[in-house]
């Protein structure tokens, strides 16, 4: 009897650990992977995909959202990135992967209102089924993926090295990567990490 009890306790202790230790089901695209184009609804009511951008040299895909304090901290900087690089052939494509069921402030209507209020110069798309964020392996907002002309991932990570004080930024990770790419040089820092809001995944 005692033995069975012990075994049960042991199993009870082990089970959650086994459950935790399983890696996330899909790590997403890796550096250098060519991404599959997608079609998502933008705040203009139209469907958008990368294919519609003609004669571009690359794409700045940013997973961001309406409510996350980090996304808000970077909002102006993401707008500036588009204003600066779209004319050089690298537009920003902003994608909101959050489930509005988990966070009502992430609804499509809220996206439309925010984009209008802030006058987003870039397309702001809703990843309603969260398929795109899953494919990319996006984990948080903001989470940036720089793609080259062939839609291959050449940089993953943060925009710069100071989320709170833009005027204190010393290293512009993303802009450095863009500059090196545009000059045909190898990208020195192709992966950086940042704190951010975890993506609000829909309950499966």
């Amino acid at each position, binding site marked *: 009897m005692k033995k069975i009890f012990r075994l049960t306790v042991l199993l009870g202790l082990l089970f959650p*650990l086994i459950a935790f230790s399983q890696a996330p089901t899909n790590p997403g695209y890796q550096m250098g992977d060519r991404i599959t184009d997608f079609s998502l609804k933008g705040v203009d009511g139209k469907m958008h995909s990368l294919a519609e951008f003609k004669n571009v040299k690359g794409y700045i895909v940013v997973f961001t959202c309406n409510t996350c304090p980090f996304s808000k901290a970077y909002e102006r900087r993401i707008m500036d990135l588009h204003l600066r690089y779209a004319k050089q052939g690298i537009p920003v494509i902003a994608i909101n992967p959050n489930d509005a069921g988990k966070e009502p402030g992430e609804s499509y209507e809220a996206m439309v209102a925010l984009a209008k209020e802030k006058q987003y110069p870039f397309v702001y798309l809703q990843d309603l089924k969260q398929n795109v964020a899953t494919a990319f392996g996006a984990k948080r907002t903001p989470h940036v993926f720089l793609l080259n002309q062939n839609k291959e991932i050449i940089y993953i990570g*943060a925009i710069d*090295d100071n989320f709170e004080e833009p005027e204190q930024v010393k290293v512009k990770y993303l802009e450095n990567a863009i500059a090196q790419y545009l000059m045909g040089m190898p990208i020195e820092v192709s992966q*950086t*990490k940042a*704190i951010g809001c*975890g993506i609000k995944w829909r309950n499966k």
Partner: protein
Amino acid sequence: MRSIRLFICLFFWIPVLKAQEVTFIKAEQITTWKKNTSDTIYIINFWATWCKPCLEEMPSFERIGEEFKDQKVRVLLVSNDFKKQIDVKLKPYMIEKGIRNKMYWMNEPDPNKWIELVDPNWGGSIPATLIIKGSEGKRKFFAGPLSYEELKDIILQMKP
């Protein structure tokens, strides 16, 4: 009479003052924690007041801290709040919720400097928790929230 009143005031203020303490740390602290060889189990939780799931799991960490306070288990909370919110959000939250676990604030503007040190597989979304028992070289990392039961299971499994 006056001194008694002062004493009473002080007595009641001590826990409040204690709750307000936030220790600033740099990236190197992560390495120090990971290198420690003590037989205490350190539960290091990365969180912020702006992170909803972090707030949801906070009571579990408090409960664990309280339950194991006389044992070799310590809960360390590392806030990732914005600097300008330490006084206006973090400290008021600690007082309101009566947080007793030790509170740290990551004094690094660039998270890229230290995320990798916590765990190479961590993408940087919070909450995240690192659990260490240095004396046995045991280390576990969890990205995502943990419940009271899960925390307790991990502790019991790590204890001799």
